[in-house]
């Protein structure tokens, strides 16, 4: 369960709510469940509340890992890569 997506904190209000944004879509969400959220943080939003701060460096590292794997695969496969998925 638990659909949640990362959005970036734009403003923090005195009442514990704040505006978060991704790709131009802005929502007002509760930020009271976080320890010391900052404007610019990426947060995981679930059911109208941010439930955790996303560690951007870890996310970028993970993407870099996948990119590296992708490049390795293409290198290993030479020309045959990037066409068909392996037969199931």
């Amino acid at each position, binding site marked *: *369960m*638990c*659909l949640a*997506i990362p959005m970036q904190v734009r403003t923090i209000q005195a009442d514990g709510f704040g*505006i978060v*944004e*991704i*790709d*131009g*879509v*802005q*929502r*007002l969400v509760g930020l009271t469940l976080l320890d010391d959220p900052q404007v610019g943080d990426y947060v995981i*939003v*679930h*059911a109208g509340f941010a439930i955790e701060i996303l560690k951007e460096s870890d996310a970028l590292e993970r993407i870099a890992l996948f990119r590296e794997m992708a490049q390795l695969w293409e290198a290993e496969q030479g020309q045959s890569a990037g066409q068909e*998925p*392996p037969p*199931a």
Partner: protein
Amino acid sequence: MDDERRVLLAHGGGGRLSRELIDREIVTRFGCEALQGLPDAASLMLDSDSIRFTTDSFVVQPLFFPGGCIGDLAVHGTVNDLSVSGGQPKYLSLGMILEEGLLWSTLRRVLDAIRAAAQACGVSIVTGDTKVVRRGQCDGIYLNMAGIGVGLPEFALSAASIRPGDAVLVSGTLGDHGMAVLAAREQLFVESPLVSDTGPVHRLVAALTPWADRVRLMRDPTRGGIAASLHECALASGFQLEERALPFAKSAQVIAELLGISLLHSPCEGRIMAVVADEIAEAVLNAWRALPEGYGACRIGSATGPVGRVTLRTLIGGVTLLDMPHGELLPRIC
């Protein structure tokens, strides 16, 4: 109480106030030959034996949403049904059910939108009806439109003509209208750059005429989105879509993810899906992309044979079945 003018029950009662509404708001906007003298039925001349006839009702909430309103939505919806059936839209009817207490200014804005959209599509409103129901019995305005068009003789559309390898094309991003309306309705979003795609597709259909003999089928993917349109065609053929080719607006993707709704189930109101012979796919896409309403056109998949299933090849190379939407777009949290 504000003293702004409002629609009264008597405006639908057939008496003096009804007449006033028709004279001042309807005839002034839509006056045409067929409406002259307000006959009980319009007399029309059509230069073809092949007629397209459709009807649709419109109950959208909110009445005004980013990118349009119930008025232009009704015109586009009706015109598009005629167009994708291989028809050239000609005449529309306008049936209105108004809620007692509706702001007169709201009615006018909707009527203005209807007029502007009809003009842009080159169609005339030739007959109509207005009823007013008690406050609370409807949601502001409901519209019903019927449309008449003449068949474009070049097209011979039929799901049975779909062949394996045929291309599935769409004219732009998918699901924008549904997400734009949900975002406006749920008041979840402070700000959203997403606008409805509501618009006419008759020029996109006209652009297909050079290759009309190899156009198998056209649909406007409204309720149920592209998934429902493909499932309607799947009785005749299976289809496989390529996830990496699916055109989505970024903001629509965000809203869909937040609400737990698939964009493939979300309605479009200004897009066209066409199944065409593989060899004309590129030419059709180029013709569409030359039009402002078709700039986002792309190929999203192919007909795969008479399996009757719609599948999706995913980014990571898996294959899944594209399900038929249940019918109510419900926000989910899990």
